[in-house]
């Protein structure tokens, strides 16, 4: 009985809505000149950001009450497939959140609207490396407004450092000394494990960037050096020396377990990305966290973090609402948006002039001022075998004691040489 009543009321409500929609449509046809709120859709792979985007979009609507943005998110792992299929079929959203570097996750350039500084003057707000990240390799054109950067660094537990009477190290030798003291006091120095392949790449980026150096990256890109270079192999050798300070049985400790080690206060340091901060604090809000960049070989060397960009916002070439989409994109490039974005999502916006509320984000932004790129992701992720695949497996093997640093360097070089001309010899 009750169910019957409910059904009836639902039917009535639905009919009411239908009538309203028809009425709205009729008036829209009747008065085409009149300003109507225009709906544009935006697709993303970040389902967890839905609530934050509702606020960010509300801020945009203050400037453009005539444009309404609908945020739709898909499962991250399937996003590229869903998006590419939609774009190939000539459908899809108006504004597309795309991945960074090379293909942007859409395959072909013609699916997106090429952009430049005349269309989006806000590009001036971004550093060159961010712009480069949203440039398609196939045609060298810029397609998206960048959104977040991620930084590879070392996160440490301030309370455990105090308890052991140590301070954040500056040089590699100091790092070894700090690790030794922590271990003697019964604290795991690093929470890191190596069972999850991609963690091995983050460990290299976080711990070794200062040892590898910016010059090495430039030499590789100029074709003057490869990964058998003493700077790269030497850095791997240093990493190999400190593996005893990783989580116990680290070769069998996967990503989730290593996160728990650190978040539970059982390890003093974690070599990883700035994206971990929010995650650690969610698991254990009482953690007092500090950050430092990879230690240098000798005092006075440049300290570096490894940096990459997460992705950007682009316009679907098939969109019939390009103007509205462009207005939205320009807003996404303003410091106003960058500040709101960073504070809502605890992510680093690369936009110049962004003000961070979170002191840890402020620290990351400071460290970002001397950065090299997260080398394989930024430069060698365009063809198989990607530099990332090679480095991850190589380092995992080395830390398991099954390969020497020199062998890893040779293996990485050999793999990349199958498509990278300067390495072919």
């Amino acid at each position, binding site marked *: 009985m009750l169910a019957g009543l409910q059904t009836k009321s639902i039917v009535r409500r639905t009919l009411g809505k239908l009538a309203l929609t028809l009425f709205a449509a009729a008036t829209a046809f009747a008065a085409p000149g009149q300003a109507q709120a225009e709906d544009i859709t935006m697709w993303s792979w970040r389902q967890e950001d839905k609530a934050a985007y509702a606020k960010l979009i509300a801020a945009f609507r203050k400037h453009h009450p005539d444009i309404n943005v609908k945020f739709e998110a898909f499962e991250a792992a399937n996003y*590229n497939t869903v998006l590419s299929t939609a774009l190939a079929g000539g459908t899809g959203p108006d504004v597309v959140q795309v991945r960074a570097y090379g293909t942007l996750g859409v395959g072909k350039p013609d699916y997106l609207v090429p952009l430049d500084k005349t269309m989006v003057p806000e590009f001036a707000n971004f550093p060159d490396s961010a712009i480069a990240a949203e440039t398609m390799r196939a045609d060298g054109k810029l397609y998206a407004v960048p959104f977040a950067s991620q930084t590879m660094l070392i996160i440490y537990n301030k309370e455990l450092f105090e308890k052991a009477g140590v301070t954040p190290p500056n040089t590699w030798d100091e790092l070894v000394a700090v690790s030794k003291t922590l271990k003697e006091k019964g604290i795991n120095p690093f929470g890191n494990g190596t069972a999850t392949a991609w963690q091995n790449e983050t460990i290299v980026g976080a711990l070794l960037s200062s040892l590898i150096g910016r010059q090495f990256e430039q030499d590789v890109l100029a074709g003057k050096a490869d990964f058998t270079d003493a700077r790269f192999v030497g850095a791997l050798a240093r990493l190999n020396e400190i593996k005893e300070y990783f*989580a116990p049985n680290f070769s069998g400790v996967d990503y989730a377990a290593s996160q728990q080690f650190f978040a539970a206060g059982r390890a003093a340091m974690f070599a990883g990305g700035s994206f971990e901060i929010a995650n650690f604090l969610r698991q254990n809000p009482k953690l007092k966290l500090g950050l430092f960049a990879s230690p240098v070989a000798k005092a006075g060397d440049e300290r570096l973090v490894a940096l990459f960009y997460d992705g950007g916002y682009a316009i679907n070439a098939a969109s019939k609402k390009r103007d509205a989409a462009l207005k939205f994109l320009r807003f996404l490039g303003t410091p106003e948006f960058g500040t709101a974005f960073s504070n809502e999502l605890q992510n680093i916006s690369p936009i110049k002039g962004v003000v961070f509320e979170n002191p840890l984000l402020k620290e990351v932004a400071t460290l970002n001022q001397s950065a090299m790129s997260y080398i394989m992701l930024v430069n060698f992720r365009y063809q*198989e075998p990607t530099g990332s695949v090679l480095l991850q*497996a190589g380092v995992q093997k080395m830390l398991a004691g099954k390969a020497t640093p020199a062998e890893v360097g040779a293996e990485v070089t050999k793999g990349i040489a199958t498509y990278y001309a300067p390495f072919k010899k």
Partner: protein
Amino acid sequence: MQTDYRNREKRRRAAWIAFLILPPLAIMLTFVVWPLLSALSAAFYRWDGMAQGDFIGLKNFADVLFGEHFAALTWRAFRHNLFVFFALFVVQNSVGFLLAWFIYREPFGFRFHRIAIFMPVILSTVLVGFLWKLFLDPNFGLVNQLLDMAGLGGLRQPWLGQETTALPALVLANAWHWIGFPALVYLAGMQRIPREILEAAKLDGCTGWQILTRVVWPLVTPSTTITLTLLFIGAFNWFELPYIMAGLDGSPYGSTDVLGLYFYRTAFGNQTAGIQDFGHGNALAVLMFLFIAVFATIITQYLRRREVAL
């Protein structure tokens, strides 16, 4: 009058048959045959990520079988699949057969054992994967703790972290999950054997082992046809468990990489390391399909003939 009625009856029968066959046929064509054919055709093109390029004939197939970089991974994965097939044959099917024999003889509490053995089969692979990942955790996992308790602490291992133990650990987890299935099929086979045959064998003075190997085993060949064929297909299509427990790369450093993982990350890309490459991925999928279809047919034909020979 009579023929009229018969004709109508015939037509009705034809309509019924059409009604029963056409919809499933349509579904098969749309959801099985068409995707297979489109995968086949996609394998003949160059792909730039998800974007289709020029027709390149058999190049993708040649690459994944013999090309630089690809071939080494393909054959490594294939060897791992072979290992998985033979290892599962021993620990899953053979032990399943012995378990079936154990239960068939109705020992004390056999009803409980029958349920206990079959229980894991109904769990989802995702659940089993996570469960065993927890069990095998080197620091807090049940397996290492049990070793400690048994005074065998020296045997503690980071099971999923070293190349010597990772793939065998996955095989054991899979066997734990599925062993109830061959056991059940064999049990059904054994229950079909007329009791008189077994009694006659006993009267002739056969030992328990002789009865098992000379009488029971040959008489349950139809069950073997089923379990072995399904095991073959399962072992070469293996994907979920290694994906959950070892990750898309077949961690550590490729020692658990099987064709399923390799195909998946080649075609759809590994977010944390790789790129999308539909051409080579589809070529791998087609080769896997052909290999499984051909060999599964051969195995079935061979085993069927054995059944008849009895």
